[in-house]
């Protein structure tokens, strides 16, 4: 590939002077970037430089505040640039945080991205999709042994990353591929495969943006590199013209760090000793730190530095660890503000003082004066850019937020201060402030452990431990400490695990693909099915008559309403909400059937359809206002009750003949209640596990952002989900009418709590879009038959709730035990 010619060609995509501001923060500040077809451009920069924001602008997720996105040198798009626009232009991205739905499998994740948005798929689309996905994965990563039909949650992190990358690459019409830290969990062999495929894509004139902190890879695979700092490009050059070490120096910038005098700490007491610390990630760590030292932990990112720091934090704050001896508390300052640092609802003062509460209390109560002055002291020291300590923390720029976190860490009464990339996204002047503070803290007797991806700021350390792949591979002391030496030591000692070892790492989880019985037992429906069988057997042993056609008919006829209600609850739970009003809702549908349908079938049918639409509207309200479903459905329960009372103020009515005939039909061999339950279970199973739109509903319950980015409307998904739930409640109402031969809006309230208990027994989770229609159906049958069992045992019907509760606890205990075994 002749690189000299790219300067003449027109870029496929060009970003001109892009600015992106969030409130006070300038995430991108006049960013320029040219992307040429068929070339690989690396984008590097320290944390907080704006790489993620840049990527989100390119993919159309964030419209730029100002500047232009230009395609082919001619087509200019400004602030109206959108995700679908980007997709049309062939831009795809493999995200660092992985945009996968973990409750779905690999081919389903592919399909969410690639399939058209028609509600139903063509016959056999799943088989086809599985084959295509497998084939594609094999092309990019040969010998991956990934089961494309297994849920992502069962796959290891390297496998997930491979799927994420392949998913982005497999976009038809691919023109620009963005890979954001694509190799963070891949081993040498896979990285090579990735790079090989990338070159193949380049031959097809696809442009690739490669964001990585692994400079050795950038050196290997990229044609050009753009260095970002502070939201703009500070250097752009061909890869031949610069070495990784020089890149590091460019990223570090012109900070003056006082070279520390080689000090003698041997007289100081030990403050931390680590002997042979080994965990999943760390191997045989030995460390000895004296009081007052500033210790650096360096090495290429991802070598286990953060894990080591977190182990030290845990041990210092009460977690027992035989390998670590530490006699003081530790405070922790993280550069990952949003996940590990700031409390978004609080102001600056509260965020700073939260670790120092003991210092600001008088007589056991928080002293506003003390707390205020502590906050003000640090506020002035760190020269915040804000209106005062009472400003909301979210109104600050990233750098200023970081200042608050550092103040928190130093203000706390801890002997050790752990800093994990503390100057992430902080400007040069503030960094100087922070280094001064660290020195001050040291003089006040604290010990500092610093990990930073900016090697230049490591120069203020007394000693530096260099880490690589979870072990300490080198130690630099005193005069040895320089960026050059740090970088050299970080790049040396490369020991790639052999193919066999890494293959083992990848398939760690797969090894649990066991025998069929084991697999069956692990199914979510196993527990409710076993419970059902157990209760049935107990019932049968007490009353052998049960084991007959009429017996089973009688046993399960009252179960049908709960089956439908629980399945309805299941759909709401998949979408992330919970229905507190389905008891009353069934009361409403019950009386509609018992009165309206009885007297005027046309009107009745219309009323039931209107009910389903109303449920969908409720879902739309919940989604658009973001008010939690739990309270909206609670309010709705009064509305259902009210309407039900209008339809029939007193119990009464009757059951339409055709409905009774249907329920009482003598189905050959299997009693009708079971047939209906089976149909309900099968129908919902098909919707949830086989249908195309069901896949979208599931995905929405797990990773709605990813599904929405693929162009699916979240509102539609929510409304459809609620309408299905409403339809199931109509079925429940019908079955109640048959059983009671009439309607009573107040009689079904108890189903509400039972439906929650049923879905828990049935194997559903309240988050993550995990459900089991079969499990829920069997769970409903099980819980319903408890009452029959209790009647035979001459147990007070009051105790039904108690028994239900105990069964629930039992189910949870079993789940816990099996979870412990798996872990």
């Amino acid at each position: 590939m002749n690189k000299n010619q790219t300067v003449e060609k027109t870029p496929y995509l060009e970003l001109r002077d892009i600015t992106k501001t969030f409130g006070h923060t300038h995430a991108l500040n006049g960013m320029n970037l040219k992307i040429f077809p068929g070339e690989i451009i690396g984008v590097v920069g320290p944390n907080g430089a704006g790489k993620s924001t840049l990527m989100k602008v390119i993919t159309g997720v964030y419209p730029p505040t100002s500047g232009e996105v230009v395609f082919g040198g001619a087509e200019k798009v400004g602030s109206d640039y959108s995700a679908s626009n980007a997709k049309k232009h062939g831009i795809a991205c493999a995200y660092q945080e992985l945009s996968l739905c973990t409750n779905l499998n690999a081919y389903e994740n592919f399909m969410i991205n690639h399939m058209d948005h028609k509600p139903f798929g063509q016959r056999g689309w799943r088989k086809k999709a599985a084959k295509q996905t497998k084939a594609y994965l094999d092309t990019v990563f040969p010998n991956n042994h990934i089961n494309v039909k297994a849920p992502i949650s069962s796959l290891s992190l390297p496998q997930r990353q491979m799927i994420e990358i392949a998913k982005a690459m497999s976009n038809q019409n691919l023109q620009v591929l963005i890979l954001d830290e694509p190799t963070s969990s891949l081993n040498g062999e896979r990285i090579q495969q990735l790079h090989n495929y990338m070159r193949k894509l380049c031959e097809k004139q696809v442009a690739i943006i490669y964001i990585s902190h692994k400079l050795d890879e950038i050196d290997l695979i990229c044609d050009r590199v753009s260095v970002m700092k502070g939201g703009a490009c500070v250097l752009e050059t061909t890869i031949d013209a610069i070495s990784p070490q020089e890149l590091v120096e460019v990223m570090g910038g012109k900070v003056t760090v006082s070279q520390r005098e080689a000090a003698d700490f041997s007289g100081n007491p030990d403050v931390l000793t680590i002997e042979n610390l080994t965990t999943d990630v760390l191997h045989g760590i030995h460390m000895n730190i004296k009081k007052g030292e500033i210790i650096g932990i360096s090495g290429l990112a991802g070598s286990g530095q953060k894990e080591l720091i977190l182990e030290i934090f845990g041990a210092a704050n009460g977690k027992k660890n035989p390998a670590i001896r530490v006699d003081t508390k530790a405070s922790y300052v993280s550069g990952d503000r949003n996940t590990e640092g700031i409390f978004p609802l609080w102001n600056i003062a509260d965020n700073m003082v939260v670790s120092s509460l003991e210092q600001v209390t008088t007589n056991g109560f928080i002293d506003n004066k003390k707390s205020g002055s502590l906050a003000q002291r640090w506020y002035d020291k760190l020269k915040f850019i804000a209106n005062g300590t009472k400003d909301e923390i979210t109104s600050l720029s990233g750098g200023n937020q970081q200042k608050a976190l550092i103040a928190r860490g130093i203000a706390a009464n801890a002997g050790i201060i752990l800093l994990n990339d503390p100057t992430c996204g902080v400007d040069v002047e503030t960094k100087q402030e922070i280094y001064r503070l660290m020195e001050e803290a040291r003089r006040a007797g604290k010990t500092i452990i610093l990990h930073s991806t900016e090697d230049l700021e490591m120069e203020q350390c007394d000693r530096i431990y260099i880490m690589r792949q979870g072990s300490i591979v080198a130690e630099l002391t005193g005069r040895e400490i320089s960026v050059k030496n740090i970088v050299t030591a970080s790049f040396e000692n490369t020991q790639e695990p052999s193919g066999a070892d890494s293959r083992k790492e990848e398939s760690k989880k797969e090894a649990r693909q066991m025998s069929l019985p084991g697999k069956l037992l692990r199914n979510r429906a196993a527990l409710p099915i076993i419970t059902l069988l157990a209760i049935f057997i107990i019932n049968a042993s007490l009353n052998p008559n049960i084991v007959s056609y009429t017996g089973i008919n009688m046993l399960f006829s009252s179960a049908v309403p709960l089956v439908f209600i629980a399945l309805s609850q299941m759909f709401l739970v998949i979408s992330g909400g919970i229905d507190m009003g389905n008891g009353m809702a069934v009361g409403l549908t019950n009386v509609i059937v018992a009165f309206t349908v009885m007297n005027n079938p046309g009107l009745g049918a219309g009323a039931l359809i209107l009910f389903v639409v109303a449920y969908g509207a409720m879902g739309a309200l919940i989604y658009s206002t973001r008010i939690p479903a739990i309270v909206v459905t609670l309010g709705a329960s009064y509305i259902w009750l009210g309407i039900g009372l209008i339809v029939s103020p007193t119990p009464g009515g009757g059951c339409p003949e055709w409905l009774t005939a249907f329920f009482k039909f003598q189905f050959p061999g299997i009693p009708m209640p079971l047939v209906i339950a089976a149909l309900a279970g099968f129908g919902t199973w098909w919707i949830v596990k086989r249908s195309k739109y069901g896949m979208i509903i599931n995905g929405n319950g797990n990773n709605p952002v990813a599904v929405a980015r693929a162009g699916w409307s979240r509102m539609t998904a929510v409304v459809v989900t609620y309408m299905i739930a409403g339809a199931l409640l109509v079925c429940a109402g019908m079955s109640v009418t048959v059983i009671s031969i009439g309607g009573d809006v107040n009689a079904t309230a108890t189903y509400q709590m039972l439906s929650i208990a049923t879905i828990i027994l049935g194997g559903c989770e309240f988050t993550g879009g995990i459900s089991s229609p079969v499990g829920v159906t069997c769970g409903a049958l099980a819980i319903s038959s408890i009452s029959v069992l209790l009647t035979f045992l001459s147990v007070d019907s009051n105790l039904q709730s108690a028994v239900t509760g105990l069964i629930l606890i039992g189910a949870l205990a079993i789940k816990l035990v099996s979870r412990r075994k798996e872990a």
Partner: protein
Amino acid sequence: MMMKDIGMRSAEGKNIDRKKWLGKNIWVWPLIGAVALWILIGAISGGLSLDVLVTNFTLASYLIILSLGQTAVMTSGEGGIDLSIQYTVALGAYFASMSMMQMGAFPGFILTIAVCACVGLLNGLVNIYIKVPPMITTLAMGYIVYSIVLVMSASIPGTPAPEISWFAQKARIGGISPIILVALGIAALVAVLLYKTKYGKRLHAVGQNRKAAQLAGISVPKTVILTFILSSVLAGLTGIFLGGYFGGAFQDMGISYMLTSIAATVIGGTSVAGGKSSVLGTIMGALMLTMLVAFLNVSKLQASMQNLIQGILLIGILVASVPKKQVNI
């Protein structure tokens, strides 16, 4: 910035400030609702009556005590909710009637509180160490408590101790039932607990971001467990007094309070996601919901319309008061 210094404010600036204030003081909405309902009651019954206000505040007091526990649990975040309080209420009533008779009023009272605290302790332990989500934990625990209540109700008549009976029904301070003062006193205590103690500060941190809280040196387990204990203690307390008010305990005495405690908490401005609470809001929410029921009774509307209005008002005030978050793709 300059304009502010000089003291001049644009009309737009004033508008934004007002919106911000309302956003921070959501309790204003249920207060307006309660006052509006009081006026409506007056309109129907031919004149504003202070008596109506006092009667309803008396009724609301029980709901207030109960809802404060729910408020605390909800503030702890990660789906924090306590579905066991309805049964703990009954547990408190029955156990108090038994223990206060046998051991004397004060020791019996303390023992009842201790027993209810254990319910909360179990809730917390299961949630934290067995890692079961709060909804499931408290639901299951609630069923267990209910079965204990059922067993107790078979052998204990549930008559409240005479002191409690007198307190809840007959006692008067300045013409009003002292339960109002108890409720307000407890509310004040809870407010101090949530806003002026280390525990309260830590609770709000835990509710916003558990990981950040842990890394800031907060013991998340301790904070969450203490919160569940607080909720169960308040539920037990409610049960003891409610038993006195009703003149006797009965199994389902707490059932209707459960959903209303959630509603009162949320309407008052406590965030379901955690990290933000409003004791004042919960009081106003409980008051408004109680006034709503009173208004519907006085209106002599049919049961159907009463329920409809209740539901629409509940949803309406939620839509009006709860701050809407941006839809973020």
